[in-house]
C-alpha cells in the first residue's frame, strides 16, 4: 500500500522580553535556580498578573509578518492542571480568542518549488518552571526561573507532507522570528521547541487518521529523524494489522526512536475558562498599522532584492539572507568594496567556511565587514590576486592590523612591474622548451600551464593577466 504522511507542527517560541509575561522578574537563561522568581512567579496568595506589553507587541509583530489576522479582542484563559513546576496550578494561555489568527508561510522545497503552509493560530502563554530530579536525596527540586517566561505557540495546519517539508517550515519560521528579533529561537537551549503531530493515511484518502504527538525534539536534524522514525513505526504497526493509538511520544535522540509517554485517550481535562484577573486585550487598527510600519525587511523580500539589486543567483541570495546578521554583513561588504558579486563569493565561500568550521555566528567573526571589504577592494584594484587574498584572509584571523599593512609587511603585493614580470616569463620559456614548441604548433591550451609556472615562480605575486599577455606576445 502506498502511504501519505500528514504532519502538523506546534512550535513554542520563548519571546525575548526582558521580563516575564505577567511579572517583572528577569528572564535570563542560565541563572542560579529560583533567583528570577518573585512573589507572583511563586504564586503567593493574593498576587495578580499584569500583561507585559512588550510580549504582546512581539506576538503581533509575528502575526503581521506572516500576514495573519490579528485578534482585535484577544482573551487569556486558565488551563488547569497540577504539576510541581506549575506554581499556580494553572497556566495562563489563550484558547478561543488567540492574539494571532490564520496566516501562512511560503517555504522552498528540495526541488526548488514553493509551497504555502497554513498557520492556524499563534497564542501567548506562560512557560512552566523546571523540575530537577538529581542530587536531592530522592526528592525533586523545583526551579521557577523559567516559570512565567512568555511563549508564543505557533500552530500549523496539517499541510506538511514529509519530514523534509517540516524542516523547511521550521527553518523558515526560525528565520522570520530571528529577523523580527522576537526570540533567540535556539532549539538546543529550548527557546524554540517543536512538537510534531504525525499521522499516515493511504494515498488518496482525504480524512485525517489518528495521530501521535512527538515531543522533546531539540534540533532541526532531530525533527527530520524523529518524524521519519515515527512514520516508519506507524507503517509497521498498521501493516502488522495494528492500530495507531492517539498518544504523546517522546523522541530519544540517543536511540533515535520515539516511545510512548502518555495516552491522550485518557486525556487531562484542562477545564479552560477565561482568566478573570486579566481584561480582554483590545487592539485597534492604528496599533497594528504602527507595528506593520516598523517591520524589518523579511527574508523573502530581501532575497528578491539581492537578486535584483546585486545580480545574485537565487541560491546565493538565499544563503546570504538566511539570517539578518549575515545579510547585513554581506550588504556592508558589498557596499564598501564596490563589488557585490565578489562580496557574495567571499561571504558565501571563505567567510561561511570559517564560521562553519568554528560554529561561529556572524557576530563572532574575527574579520569584520569593513576589513573584508578592503581585502576585496585590493583584489579589484590588482594590488593582490584572488589567490593571495586567501592567504591574506588567513593572516587576518590572528592579525587585527590594517589589511594594507598586512599585504605590505608580508610582501604579498602583486608584481605589476613589466620588467620584473618579463624576467619571470623569459625564465619560464627557457625552462619549458617542449611546451613552448607544442604551443606554437597550435596546442594553445598550454598557455594555462605556462601561466601557472610563472605564477609559481613569482610565489603567486605576479599579475596573472600581465603574465598571460606577455607569454603570448613572446611566443608569437
Amino acid at each position: 500500500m502506498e502511504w501519505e504522511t500528514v504532519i502538523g507542527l506546534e512550535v513554542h517560541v520563548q519571546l525575548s522580553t526582558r521580563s516575564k509575561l505577567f511579572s517583572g522578574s528577569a528572564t535570563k537563561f542560565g541563572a542560579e535556580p529560583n533567583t528570577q522568581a518573585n512573589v507572583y512567579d511563586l504564586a503567593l496568595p493574593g498576587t495578580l498578573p499584569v500583561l507585559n506589553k512588550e510580549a504582546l507587541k512581539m506576538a503581533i509583530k509575528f502575526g503581521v509578518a506572516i500576514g495573519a489576522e490579528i485578534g482585535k479582542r484577544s482573551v487569556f484563559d486558565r488551563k488547569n492542571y497540577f504539576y510541581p513546576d506549575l506554581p499556580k496550578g494553572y497556566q495562563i494561555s489563550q484558547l478561543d480568542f488567540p492574539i494571532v489568527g490564520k496566516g501562512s508561510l511560503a517555504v522552498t522545497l528540495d526541488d526548488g518549488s514553493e509551497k504555502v503552509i497554513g498557520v492556524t493560530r499563534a497564542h501567548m502563554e506562560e512557560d512552566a518552571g523546571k523540575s530537577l530530579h538529581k542530587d536531592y536525596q530522592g526528592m525533586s527540586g523545583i526551579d521557577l526561573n523559567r516559570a512565567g517566561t512568555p511563549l508564543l505557540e505557533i500552530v500549523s495546519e496539517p499541510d506538511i507532507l514529509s519530514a523534509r517539508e517540516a524542516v523547511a517550515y521550521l527553518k523558515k519560521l526560525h528565520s522570520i522570528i530571528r529577523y523580527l528579533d522576537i526570540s533567540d529561537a535556539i532549539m538546543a537551549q529550548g527557546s524554540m521547541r517543536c512538537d510534531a503531530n504525525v499521522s499516515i493515511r493511504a494515498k488518496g484518502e482525504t480524512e485525517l487518521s489518528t495521530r501521535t504527538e512527538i515531543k522533546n525534539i531539540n534540533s532541526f536534524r532531530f525533527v527530520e529523524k524523529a518524524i521519519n522514525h515515527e512514520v516508519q513505526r506507524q507503517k509497521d504497526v498498521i501493516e502488522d494489522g495494528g492500530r495507531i493509538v492517539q498518544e504523546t511520544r517522546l523522541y530519544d535522540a540517543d536511540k533515535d526512536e520515539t516511545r510512548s509517554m502518555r495516552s491522550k485517550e485518557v486525556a487531562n481535562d484542562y477545564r479552560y475558562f477565561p482568566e478573570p484577573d486579566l481584561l480582554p486585550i483590545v487592539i485597534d487598527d492604528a496599533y497594528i498599522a504602527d507595528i506593520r510600519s516598523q517591520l524589518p525587511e523579511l527574508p523573502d523580500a530581501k532575497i528578491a532584492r539581492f537578486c535584483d539589486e546585486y545580480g545574485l543567483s537565487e541560491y546565493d541570495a538565499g544563503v546570504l539572507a538566511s539570517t539578518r546578521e549575515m545579510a547585513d554583513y554581506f550588504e556592508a561588504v558589498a557596499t564598501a568594496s564596490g563589488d557585490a558579486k565578489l562580496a557574495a563569493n567571499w561571504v558565501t565561500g571563505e567567510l561561511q567556511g570559517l564560521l562553519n568550521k568554528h560554529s561561529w555566528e556572524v557576530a563572532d567573526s574575527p574579520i569584520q565587514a569593513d576589513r573584508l571589504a578592503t581585502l576585496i577592494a585590493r583584489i579589484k584594484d590588482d594590488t593582490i590576486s584572488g589567490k593571495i587574498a586567501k592567504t591574506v584572509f588567513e593572516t587576518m584571523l590572528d592579525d587585527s592590523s590594517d589589511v594594507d599593512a598586512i599585504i605590505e609587511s608580508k610582501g604579498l603585493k602583486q608584481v605589476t612591474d613589466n620588467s620584473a614580470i618579463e624576467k619571470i616569463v623569459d625564465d619560464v620559456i627557457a625552462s619549458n622548451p617542449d611546451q613552448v614548441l607544442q604551443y606554437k604548433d597550435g596546442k594553445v591550451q598550454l598557455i594555462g600551464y605556462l601561466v601557472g609556472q610563472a605564477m609559481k615562480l613569482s610565489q603567486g605575486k605576479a599579475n596573472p593577466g600581465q603574465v598571460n599577455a606577455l607569454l603570448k606576445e613572446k611566443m608569437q
Partner: protein
Amino acid sequence: MIEKTVAELSAALGSGDISSVELTQIFLDRIATHNAELNAFITVCDEAALKQAQAADAARANGDSDALLGIPMAHKDIFCTQGVTTTCGSRMLQNFVSPYDATVVERFNAAGTVTLGKTNMDEFAMGSSNETSFFGPVRNPWDTARVPGGSSGGSAAAVSAGLCAMATGTDTGGSIRQPAAFCGITGFKPSYGRVSRWGMIAFASSLDQAGPLCKSAEDASLMLNVMAGLDEKDSTSIDRTTEDYTATLGDSLQGLKIGIPKQHFAESLSADVEQGIRDALSEYERLGATLREIDLPNNHLSVSAYYVVAPAEASANLSRYDGVRYGYRCEDPVDLEDMYKRSRSEGFGDEVKRRIMVGTYALSAGFYDAYYRKAQKIRRLIKNDFNAAFEEVDIIIGPTSPHTAFELGAKSDPVAMYLEDIYTIAVNLAGLPAISVPAGMVNGLPIGMHMVGNDFAEAKVLNVAHQFQQQTDWHRQRPAAFTEEG
C-alpha cells in the same frame, strides 16, 4: 472613646485630647479583655501597633494631619501583611507569613493608621456565618449565641464590640454587608475594580472586592478615600479619578428617586425586618425622596449563577495551595500525588472542599456550557436588570438579609446557608457599589438596610446612607455587653 466614630476619633487626636498611643492601648486592652469571648481576632499585633502609634504621634507633632493618622484598625486576615501571619481563616495558611503587603494595607499604612491585628473570617471567605474558620467561629456581640455573619465576621464583630475603630473586609457575595447587618454596623462594598485586589487572597476573582466596615457612612467615606484608586498591580482595577467621598455626604436628598425591588420584599423576608425597612424608607420620604417599586426579574437566578461562577473561579484560585512552596504540607508523603491529595484534604475545611468540587465539576468537559457559560449569561441578564432599573431610579433600597443574626449551628444545610445572601449576591454579579447600614432593632438584634448604587456611584450611595444616619441613631446603638463600661 471606643464608642466614637472614626471622624470623632480623628478630631480627638487632632485636638490633642488623646494620643494615638493612648488610643491604641485602649483598644489593645479591649481586645485582651474581650477577644476570648468573641474570637474576632486571629492575630493581635501588640508591639507593632504601639510602634505605629508612636510613629503616628510623631508625625502629628511634625504637622501631619491626615484624617486617619493614628486611628487603630484591624485587617481581615485575607489581606497579606508583611511579616505578619496571613491565614485566610485556613489551616492551609496557618503558618504563612506574607513577605509583602496588600495594596489596601500599604495604603492604610501610608495614611498612618495603626494595625491592631488580623480578624477572623470564614475559611477563604467561603461562608455566611463565620463558622467555617479553621480558628473557630466568631460570636455576635449582640448575642454571643449567635453568628456575626460572614465571611468578614471577625471585622464586623470587632467594630461592633469596640475592639477597633474600623476594619477592612472583603465582599464576594455579601461578605461585608451581611455581617455589618448582623452586627449593627456600616459595611460598604465598592464597585468592582474600585479598590485594588493585589495582596487580597482570591476567592472568586471576578466578584471579590475590598471595602470598609465601620460605624457610619462618614467613616466609610474616610476609609474609601484611602482604599480607592487605580493600582497597576491589579489589571482589573479601574482607571478613574477618585473623588473625596466625604465632599458630597451633605447633599440634599430632595427629589431622590428610590427604587424598591419587589423581589426583595418577597416571602422569605421576615415580617419584623420588613417593618424596620419600611419605617426607614418613610424617613427618606420625609427627606424629600420618592419611592417606586421596581422589578429585578432575574434576581431569583442570582444565587444559582453565583454558586457556579464563584466556585469555578475558586477551584482554580485555590489550586496553588499544593504543599509544594508554602502553606500546609502533609506528614511524610509517599509520592507527589499523595502529597497533593493529603495536603489539600487535610489543609482545607469541608466548605472549601465542597466549593472546589462544585467549581471543578462546573468547568469540566461536557458541563461547561450547561453551567459556567449559562451562569455568565445569567450574569449579563442580572446586570441588564440593574441597568434598566437605574434608568428609572437613583438608588435601590431593600433589606440586607431576610432576617437578623441566627444562632450558631442553625444552618447546617449548605444550601440554606447559600440563601443567606439572596439580596446581596446579585450586586456582586453586576459589580455595583452597595452599603448596609443599621436601620432598626428586632428583639435586641440589629436590622441591616441595603442600598445599591449605579456603577461607580459610590459617592451617591454614601450620601444617601449618611443622610439617613443624620436623622436616626440606629448606627449609634452598641451591644450592651461591650460598652465602655461593659
